[in-house]
């Protein structure tokens, strides 16, 4: 009872949410996607996921040992980074390249800038883009077991027809975690129900992207084509799990909408007019860089504050 009469300075009411709790929710929401990836691509996907997570956690631990800082591996954020990075890798990637990706994500993108909460760019996607440039051949090799052809996005780019139903379920070639739109949506529903993310960023992202497709793809309002574009590549995974990263997305409500619009336009530009079939990761890390500016112009007006009248000369 004595707690009730505790006299202290504010804050008096604290949320139960902690970093580790939220990270745990994210891992939970990623489980369907992870499970489907392992089911779809077999044991190699499992090994790659474990190696990447281990590499991220180990890097964080070693880095903090070297610079004599308190270890933060208990907040699960390195696990989330590792898992997200692994889900963004093709299942045939050599394991040591995945290790380099993990080290890059944690040591360079995250810890060099001050650790969790200070990184200006999503660590998992920063590392994915690094690997994409560093090991271009291995990162775009998606042939495994039954899947011998190109990814659906690459096929669509070449004007071939794709089966949107397969892409919804996930029976296609691609990175470990991006293929099944349904599994990702299950995870997204979990995150939204738990209140971890709100719909502003993914919602505006997807709507803007669809509008961009209708206007510029040359297919008009072709339902099949739009569904395939939405389910193909990393768009779903990116929209719900990576664009919504707390550290690298705006905190202002209007800023989130603006952020989503930026993402949609950039992804559309990269996919329609860029050199590659896919552009989600580059769109997200590019928009991450815009976040400070977006936040600056979307600061909400404080209650009761009157706009300063323009000075007359």
């Amino acid at each position, binding site marked *: 009872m004595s707690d009730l009469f505790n006299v202290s300075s504010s804050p008096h009411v604290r949320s139960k949410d902690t970093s580790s709790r939220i990270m745990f929710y994210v891992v939970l929401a990623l489980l369907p996607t992870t499970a489907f990836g392992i089911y779809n691509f077999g044991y190699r996907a499992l090994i790659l996921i474990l190696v990447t997570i281990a590499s991220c956690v180990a890097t964080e631990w070693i880095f903090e040992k070297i610079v004599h800082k308190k270890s933060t591996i208990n907040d699960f954020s390195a696990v989330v980074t590792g898992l997200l990075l692994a889900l963004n890798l093709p299942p045939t990637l*050599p394991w040591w*390249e995945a290790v*380099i990706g993990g080290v890059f994500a944690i040591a*360079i993108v995250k810890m060099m800038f001050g650790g969790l909460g200070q990184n200006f760019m999503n660590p998992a996607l920063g590392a994915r883009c*690094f690997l994409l*440039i*560093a*090991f*271009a051949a*291995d990162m775009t090799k998606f042939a495994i077991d039954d899947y011998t052809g190109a990814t659906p996005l690459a096929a669509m780019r070449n004007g071939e027809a794709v089966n949107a139903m397969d892409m919804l379920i996930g029976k296609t070639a691609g990175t470990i975690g991006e293929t099944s739109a349904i599994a990702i949506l299950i995870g997204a529903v979990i995150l939204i129900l738990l209140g971890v993310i709100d719909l502003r960023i993914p919602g505006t992202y997807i709507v803007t992207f669809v509008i961009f497709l209708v206007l510029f793809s040359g297919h008009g309002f072709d339902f099949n084509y739009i569904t395939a574009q939405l389910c193909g590549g990393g768009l779903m995974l990116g929209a719900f799990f990576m664009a919504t990263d707390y550290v690298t997305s705006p905190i202002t409500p209007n800023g989130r909408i603006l952020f989503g619009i930026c993402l949609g336009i950039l992804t559309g530009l990269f996919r329609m007019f860029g050199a590659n079939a896919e552009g989600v990761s580059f769109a997200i890390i590019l928009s991450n860089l815009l976040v400070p500016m977006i936040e600056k112009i979307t600061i909400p007006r404080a209650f009761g504050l009157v706009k300063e009248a323009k000075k007359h000369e």
Partner: protein
Amino acid sequence: MSKYTERLYNGIIKENPTFVLMLGMCPTLAVTTAAMNGLGMGLSTTLVLVCSNLLISAFRKVIPDGVRMPAFIVIVASLVTVVEFLMKAYTPDLATQLGVYIPLIVVNCIILGRAESYASKNPVLPSIFDGIGMGLGFTFGLTCIGIIREILGAGQIFGVQILSLEWFTPITIFVMAPGAFLVLAFLVAVMNIVREKMEAKGKPLAAPSGCLTGDCAHCGQSAMCTGKKSE
């Protein structure tokens, strides 16, 4: 330490143009895709730097203060033209590799920086050693960056394959532009650690700037300097 070896030490370690002064960043980032390119760029810059320091120091009492910049540029540009023709004649491959960055030595900050802050105020012989020191420091920096980028990006050193491609996958990002920034940043960090250790041991390392003497009244950068002492 004599005045001359002090200039060499100053250029290579204390005020290394690449890692401490951060001068001449364009060639540093652009041409260091291979160790040979870095070495070639560094040595040609050294040659120009030594000659320009010599000439500017020799003419320092003749050049009027108001037109010293155009005068320096004319001297440096003539020297660069000579070096460019020499390289085209004797090392045509390297000249093709370095391309536009050879003529761009004219506007290299290191050369104008040394002319302005050292050669135009000091006698000929120390100026020559200053040029050698700074040039070697620049060569050292560029070659280091080049070696690291070449090993990681192609598995080679000076064009010799040392990591067999049978088991080594070149990390191609290191021979592209982002790799230059990454490697430079890491080497600057290493250099800062080394300098910190040296300072802890009591070796003299003044702040890397033109303000070594503290004589603001006679400093060339006095007009733009923000940390100027009140006179």
